[in-house]
């Protein structure tokens, strides 16, 4: 099972003063909500990581979320905000794309009076920039916007679009047919995915919470297990339910899926679509570009493969312990062993790439090393 990732959570501090919608009229939400509180919820549910999503239409809030992400390993990404009407919007998006953990942008379409706002050609420049930098467009929309997003998906086939909260359908006792059809239409574009999140807060008063299961079925049938992304919309979720109950309800909805599909919806899809960087360090480290050895940051097993950079793969030949060295490439007898960019001795036997390098195949060029049983002469 890949890591479980909650692809949609919010953190905020009303004192920052730029949220607009967040007012004392929402007593449960109008307070500082920090990463410790979120971490407690995730840990209780067994969720490994989260993607923070913007809640204010300002770039300052994105900086705020990125600063939290920078010090919090389990925060895997930030969906922020960029001013689509700025004259240098492409430059701004390029800069954001260079910041660690910045994975997407979310204009707050649901709050805009003009449903066609996003169709404006000027804003199309921003969407093009998102596509070329591999950033996701998070669509915070209502059903009225669904056909507009279809147009965007058609105009920008390289843009990854994620529909938040399944476009917030009103959930009564029956699934709305127009919504269902629009979901299918959106799903026909391979660059569109949908978040399985936020639905409990869309329930009509008095409606049965299990009606949400019908909506989830529509999402899964339309987008399949490879384009549905699980999230919670916590803490907004707490207006209607608890993290624990949402988690249990969605697990029930996914129970008929294979383990592989469940794992995709619960984290792997988010990791792929948002291009989340692994927060697990590679099991071996290259200390200096000139080195011909790697140092294991955990014990590795024969047969393991991993990347030490985007285009350099290591194939481990034999079990090697934490702190020990692996050959980065094949080394022959007499070759210098380079670590920290400096020679640490010479090979006394050949080793293939991915093999263990130690006293059995290298020696000091300076003075004998020894174990309790044996001495490895330097000369």
């Amino acid at each position, binding site marked *: 099972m890949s890591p479980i990732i909650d692809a949609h959570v919010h953190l905020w501090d009303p004192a920052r003063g730029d949220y607009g919608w967040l007012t004392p009229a929402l007593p449960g939400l109008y307070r500082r909500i920090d990463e410790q509180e979120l971490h407690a919820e995730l840990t209780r549910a067994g969720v490994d990581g989260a993607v923070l999503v913007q809640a204010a239409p300002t770039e300052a809030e994105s900086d705020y979320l990125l600063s939290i992400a920078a010090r919090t390993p389990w925060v895997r990404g930030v969906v922020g905000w960029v001013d689509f009407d700025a004259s240098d919007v492409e430059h701004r998006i390029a800069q954001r794309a260079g910041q660690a953990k910045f994975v997407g942008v979310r204009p707050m379409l649901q709050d805009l009076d003009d449903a066609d706002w996003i169709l404006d050609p000027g804003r199309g420049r921003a969407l093009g920039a998102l596509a070329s930098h591999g950033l996701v467009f998070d669509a915070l929309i209502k059903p009225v916007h669904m056909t507009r997003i279809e147009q965007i998906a058609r105009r920008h086939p390289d843009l990854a679009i994620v529909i938040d909260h399944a476009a917030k359908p009103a959930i009564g006792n029956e699934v709305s047919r127009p919504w269902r059809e629009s979901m299918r239409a959106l799903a026909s574009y391979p660059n569109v995915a949908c978040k399985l999140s936020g639905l409990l807060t869309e329930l009509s008063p008095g409606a049965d919470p299990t009606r949400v299961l019908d909506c989830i079925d529509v999402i899964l049938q339309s987008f399949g297990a490879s384009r549905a992304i699980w999230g919670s919309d916590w803490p907004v979720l707490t207006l209607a339910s608890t993290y624990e109950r949402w988690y249990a309800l969605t697990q029930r909805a996914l129970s008929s899926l294979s383990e592989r599909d469940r794992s995709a919806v619960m984290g792997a899809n988010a990791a792929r679509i948002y291009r989340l960087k692994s927060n697990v360090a590679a099991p071996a480290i290259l200390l200096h570009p000139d080195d011909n050895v790697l140092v294991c940051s955990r014990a590795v097993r024969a047969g393991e493969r991993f990347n030490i950079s985007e285009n350099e793969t290591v194939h481990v030949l034999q079990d090697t312990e934490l702190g020990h060295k692996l050959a980065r490439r094949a080394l022959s007898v007499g070759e210098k062993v380079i670590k920290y960019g400096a020679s640490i001795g010479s090979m006394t036997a050949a080793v293939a790439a991915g093999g263990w390098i130690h006293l059995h195949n290298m*020696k000091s060029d300076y003075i004998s090393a020894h174990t309790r049983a044996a001495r490895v002469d330097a000369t």
Partner: protein
Amino acid sequence: MSFQGYLRKDGRKGIRNVVAVAYLVECAHHVARRIVERCDDADVHLIGFPGCYPNEYALRMMKALATHPNVGAVLLVSLGCESFNREALAAHVAASDRPVETIVIQKAGGTRSAIERGVAAVKAMKQKASDAAVRVPMQLSELVVGTICGGSDGTSGITANPAVGRAFDRLVEAGATCIFEETGEMIGCEGPMAVRASTPAVAAAIVASIAKAETYYRAMGFGSFAPGNAEGGLSSQEEKSAGAYVKSGSSPIVGVIKPAEVPEAPGLYLLDVVPDGPPKFGFPNISDNAEIVELMACGAHLTLFTTGRGSVVGSAIAPVIKVTGNPDTYRRMTEDMDVNAGRILEGKGDLDEVAEEIVSLVAAVAGGQLTKSEDMGHREFILTYKSFEPSGPGCLPRSA
């Protein structure tokens, strides 16, 4: 960061107020140890020198240690017939305004009588030292911090040592005095190290000290390399050396000192621990505590000790902060490890975060918080024969 220190007559400030009980030959060791045990007091520490032959270095070291700023009073325990110049040591301590007494076992009536008198003397001196203590505010800039590594493995050089290096950078920046050593583990590093020297004389002294170490260790037939280093993935002295060197951080090296030389000006110093002259008394430092003792003799108030395999030692007189580079060692030996730099390997923090943690802990320990080894009663101490020529004037900056 400010904390309360103990002001001494020479102007230095201590972070502890220890009564040191010092045996002046191995023959007095048992009596001195029994005195310390009977006192059953965390602030009464055992130190000493085992040899019977006269040795300039040992006398200089004992003078430096008995007047270390963390020491408030001293009891000397002599058998009576050994060559150690107890009178000179006692006079040196008395001149520093510290309470000092000497018990000569042969004059005191033997073992039992000497122990009884010693216990009474320590209790009286402890009271005196406590009554006479002058508590004053102390800053990070007034600290002398040493670093060593022990039980290194393949993680030490990539987590704990560079984290200590960055902590050293911050401490030096704050005006503190920092000392690194292990010249025998820096063979091959002398070029880059000399570039960091603040004067040509210091650069020359660095190169000379490493060349001396190389000659010395070759004559001994062993480098500073233990079987545990190999089990932990280190394959050669050079590899261990490169990892050890990064503990020094990136500050300029302002001086090269020898044991028992106390720097007057702040900054980063290299301590040359390899004896001068032809190899004479065996291995320069027979175990990690021999190095800690030399750092203390240069005024170190505390020592940052990095370990991969998991050393447990502490020290008499000056607290030891244990930083492990290996996350498995931290899990296995949490009770001994103050800082887990190994978490870096598991994606839980980076070198700067660990460096911050180390600096905060240095301030807390300076303010009286006990380190783990200190709390568990580790008070290791070892001093053996060596010989040194004094450092040349160019090796030491004078205070402004």
